[in-house]
């Protein structure tokens, strides 16, 4: 029985990693569509939201079933708890991808302002944090997440700088208000995605050590 349970736990982890990659790709593709002002690419991201939701429900159900039928303990229990958090965080990351994709059609008619400020760079950093947190979950490794606090500080600083730069552009030229507001919102979404990566990292730490940490 224990072997069957552990095989299912391994498969659950594998499929959760697949969902996390799916959600991360939604966000990456949405940001690419935004940068390239590619409306078709953005539509393809929005179309994935049902599949994402489907994965969330199925993975959660598998977690609940393992809890109900196998009453897991110790690390087995912590893996399932962490998996539920990774599933929720992935869902949010994918949804932010969809939200950013929805913005593309609104700001694709005019050229970008100031090369979208630091948004492409910020997106790369947030994406790396998501990748590392998911890899840490997959590989049972806390080494990959050891510098998350500093990386999160960088993300916060970038969001703040995009906010200030956006305000400056809007004051100089009110015609930029709509686009700059969208940029500020996108920066906020990317910051939230990095926060979700931090949440995953905190839970991976708990999964592996049994100790709770807080990444500021």
């Amino acid at each position, binding site marked *: *029985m*224990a072997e069957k*349970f*552990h095989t299912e736990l391994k498969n659950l982890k594998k499929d959760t990693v697949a969902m996390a990659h799916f959600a991360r790709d939604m966000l990456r593709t949405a940001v690419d569509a935004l940068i390239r002002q590619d409306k078709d690419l953005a539509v393809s991201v929005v179309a994935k939201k049902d599949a994402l939701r489907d994965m969330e429900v199925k993975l959660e159900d598998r977690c609940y079933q393992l809890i109900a039928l196998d*009453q*897991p*303990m*110790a*690390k*087995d*229990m*912590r893996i399932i708890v962490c998996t539920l958090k990774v599933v929720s965080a992935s869902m949010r990351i994918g949804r932010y991808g969809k939200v950013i994709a929805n913005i593309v059609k609104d700001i694709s008619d005019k050229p970008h302002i100031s090369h979208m400020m630091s948004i492409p760079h910020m997106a790369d950093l947030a994406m790396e944090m998501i990748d590392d947190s998911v890899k840490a979950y997959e590989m049972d490794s806390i080494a990959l997440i050891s510098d998350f606090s500093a990386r999160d500080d960088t993300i916060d600083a970038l969001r703040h700088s995009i906010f200030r730069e956006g305000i400056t552009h809007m004051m100089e030229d009110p015609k930029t208000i709509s686009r700059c507001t969208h940029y500020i919102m996108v920066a906020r979404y990317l910051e939230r995605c990095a926060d979700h990566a931090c949440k995953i990292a905190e839970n991976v730490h708990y999964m592996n*050590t*049994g*100790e709770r940490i807080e990444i500021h």
Partner: protein
Amino acid sequence: MSESTIISTQNLNLWYNEKHALQSVSMRIPQNKVTALIGPSGCGKSTLLRCFNRLNDLIDHVKITGEITFDNENIHAPGTDVVYLRKKVGMVFQKPNPFPKSIYENIAYGPRVHGVRDKGELDRIVEQSLRHAAIWDEVKDRLNDSALGLSGGQQQRLCIARTLAVEPEVILMDEPCSALDPIATAKIENLIEMLKEEYTVIIVTHNMQQAARVSDYTGFMYLGKLIECGRTSDIFEHPKEELTENYITGRFG
């Protein structure tokens, strides 16, 4: 463990002939708490339990070294009253073992042995013990019926009541639910929760979920050694020892 200690062992070793069944076990049992002993078959958990009221004295070729204290007294000290010790440290076994007597006589037997003769006092002890064991309402109208006519779960609660009748401080339970169905098991588990207000309970169980549900502290034993002992929530959420982790996650045992 910040709670006061009622029983403690220090470097306890036990041999059955050549077999070294308990190896340097040192642990403290906190008062008015439920402590569970878990571990694979043959790891020594029942042997350790039976040390606490010197039940192993009844087995030939047993050698014990180290110290066990109950209420700060060494229970192997010369002059220890073993009958008194077993009155204070009562025991409930795996299979319910009521005497082939009436329900009333099962409970009254212990107090009588210890000198209670007054009928009114015996009636009071019988009712109070049966109430504490959460079986009074089920048997109060048939106290003179044979105890053997009760269901397995009722018989086990009767045995607990019989233990309570001699006013113990500690109740040892050796797999008390393994012969019972889930409903009877749930009743015993609820009872254990109530009992700890007045008594200290030490329970041996092979059922880890039961240990997790009913106990405040858990000791994990393996091949005669106490591998880890601590708060139940810690043992089942993040045990310190890899061996404990592997056992409670079903990787062996």
